[in-house]
């Protein structure tokens, strides 16, 4: 990892440790105050506990122009970003995509191209609905590896993370606590329930928490929709297409709507927020990632709406292409943060 970023985070963490005014904002400070000296692993853990709510920046009496030049949200964001690149498997992919909006867009385009090619080359012999465009077997052949590879990659990264931060053996209770905190985004409430300081300097608002909830639950609903459909297909022998009042459709449509609204709001907030409090150079990558996620949701909804028209094959290729890119990029984009954050919360719960 980059030693200059770690050194800067260490310098700031030591000042915070002498101050302690921000203790109640989030999980970072109690963890920070438990140490006296900060190893690289400690800093990586603190960085992944931080979710850039900025409460500690606007409340800090030592921000620039003060010579102590505190900007803990950015110092931690830099280490966090660097840790995601460094812990990625393969590492080169982390370096290539995390910060690069261009590379993420390129990946999406390749995803589209691949699907268009597949539609052409693997033209189906019969089949209903979408399967008339691309056979179920072809879809599985493409998406099963695209689903399994990221899981494998993330598993390796999390193992690396666990070693790096020096956490102990994982127990179920740690995971329960971590999921509990993630589910209601306790930390995003800012310690006092007023939310975070994101889009309008020191004004507290629930905006970012709401947007994040929408994105997360939207994504999970879409994912659930696909999972339910898979079960219906293989276990219950009920292949697609499904009517509106079926579980996959209900989950998919509501999830898609939440996802799109959440992504639009997230981009809006990010454009208003002060970028000097984010990781340096990561803005393009983040916006591109949220864009890709939103596109997955939007193309899914449009596909649902225009599924009976001549535009369907093109829409299907676009949607599946973006899903493919999203899956494959999961370990190498902002998408990975959810996994690291859970790991950080689980490791943190060992302290309690």
């Amino acid at each position, binding site marked *: 990892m980059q030693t200059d970023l770690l050194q800067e985070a260490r310098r700031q963490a*030591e000042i915070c440790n*002498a101050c302690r*005014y921000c203790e109640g904002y989030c999980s970072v400070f109690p963890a920070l105050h438990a140490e*006296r000296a900060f190893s690289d692993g400690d800093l990586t853990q603190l960085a992944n506990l931080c979710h850039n709510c900025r409460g*500690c920046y606007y*409340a800090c*009496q030592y921000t620039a*122009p003060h010579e102590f030049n505190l900007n803990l949200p950015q110092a931690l964001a830099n280490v966090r970003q660097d840790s995601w690149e460094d812990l990625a498997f393969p590492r080169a992919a982390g370096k290539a995509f995390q910060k690069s909006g261009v590379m993420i867009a390129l990946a999406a385009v390749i995803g589209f191209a691949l699907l268009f090619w597949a539609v052409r080359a693997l033209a189906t012999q019969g089949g209903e609905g979408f399967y008339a465009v691309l056979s179920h077997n072809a879809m599985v052949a493409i998406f099963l590896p695209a689903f399994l590879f990221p899981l494998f990659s993330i598993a390796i990264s999390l193992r690396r993370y666990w070693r790096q931060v020096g956490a102990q053996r994982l127990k179920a209770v740690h995971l329960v606590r971590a999921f509990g905190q993630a589910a209601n985004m306790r930390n995003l409430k800012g310690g006092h329930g007023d939310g975070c300081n994101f889009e309008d300097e020191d004004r507290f608002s629930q905006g970012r928490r709401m947007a994040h909830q929408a994105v997360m639950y939207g994504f999970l609903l879409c994912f659930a929709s696909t999972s339910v459909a898979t079960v219906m297909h293989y276990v219950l022998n009920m292949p697609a297409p499904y009517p509106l009042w079926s579980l996959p459709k209900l989950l998919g449509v509501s999830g898609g709507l939440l996802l799109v609204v959440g992504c639009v709001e997230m981009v809006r907030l990010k454009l208003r927020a002060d970028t000097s409090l984010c990781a340096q150079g990561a803005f393009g990558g983040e916006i591109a990632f949220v864009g890709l996620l939103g596109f997955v949701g939007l193309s899914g909804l449009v596909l649902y709406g225009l599924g009976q028209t001549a535009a369907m094959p093109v829409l299907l290729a676009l949607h599946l292409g973006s899903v493919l890119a999203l899956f494959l990029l999961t370990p190498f984009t902002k998408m990975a943060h959810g996994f690291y954050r859970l790991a950080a919360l689980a490791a943190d719960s060992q302290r309690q």
Partner: protein
Amino acid sequence: MTPAGTNPDVVVIGGGNAALCAAITAAEAGARVLILEAAPKPYRGGNSRHTRNFRCMHQGPLGPLVDSYTEEEYLADLLKVTGGKTHEGLARLAIRTSEACLPWMEEHGVRFQPSLSGTLSLARTNAFFLGGGKGLVNAYYRTAERLGVEVVYEALVTHLELDEDRINYVDYIRDGQTHRVTPKSVVVASGGFQADTDWLARAWGPAARNFLIRGTPYNRGVVLADLLAQDIAQVGDPTQCHAVAIDGRAPKFDGGIVTRLDCVPFSIVVNKDAERFYDEGEDVWPKRYAIWGRLVAAQPDQVGYVIIDAKSLNLFMPSVFPPIKADTLEELAGKLDLPAEALAETVATFNAACGDTSGFHPTELDGVATTGLTPPKTNWARPITEPPFYGYSLRTGVTFTYLGLKVDENAQCAIGDRPIRNLWAAGETMAGSILGQGYLAGFGMTIGTVFGRIAGKEAAAHAN
């Protein structure tokens, strides 16, 4: 609400806690309020931006505070630190009103935190601000803006024109130009004069030039001097200030809380000739924190050096700068610019005077003392033997000055024995009306909140 412009109902001078409490209260009473703050926006909030808690009376559990803290107990704590130099009537008023302040603060955006690590002993008496004083100040500015209060930053008030028993106008400098406003009421909340080193040096002697100022560089006492020159009633004397010993490497201004050093009880402290000069183990540190400012101020070059060894390093809160570290005392003396032989001698004499250390207990008066040593060390006296050795330099850090405006229970200023009809004062600038000397942690914010609100209410009532 119409903008306050040049003839607002109320002008509030200053932009810290007392000023904001006054401005919010006046605006809620319907007044058009203008805040004139000398600092630029990033540095707004004076010393208040460095605070962390306020001391609050309460009959039962209240907000983050546990148990109860009665008026009598609060007053007793106050009398102990001021050695009786307290205006009891105003002190009781501040104490009694503090209980209603806490919910008022919450209603106006201030958030408190559950008791902090390392400060559990204060969980009953002091409520800690989430995010510290700057978080509090930010919340008040948001509230004030919402109420239509107008804020001008970088507005240095230079003169209040007194005509008999009323302030006619207020002059301030902004962008190199003098501006004049003619408010109906004026609240002064512009702190002490500690950031004016010349004034400190006049009062204290040239040694004061070596003092560090823990808080804002903007509290230079300009308004205070202007009013005192017009014979407005004063209280306290200019030689009194609250000063503590802080890390000698701290910046001249605004170093704040993180420059605090808590290691003195586990150390020996020497002057630049490597001689000890006071009992480092006299009492637990919070009780001795404030006298070390004066002790260091009395040493040559106003500097002291704390020497500890490896076994004491983890017994106190970390501070902003890491200690100077060396494997031998000789090397440490070199790094601290102390005479090496003298230091070796002082440490050897001290070590020889240490006795049985088995009763050592870092958080209690353990009676582990030296014998036959002058000055003695009466607690926590353990020989300094275990390398690496560590050193910090100490300097005097001034928190605030006591000289101020004399006010009555309405926070109103006076000339001779007549009240000035439209002038009120709140916060540090009138704290001397209550405390003649000494200081009780968290009482500064209590005074500012209580008298800020009183001043705001009275100023608005007068304007209507």
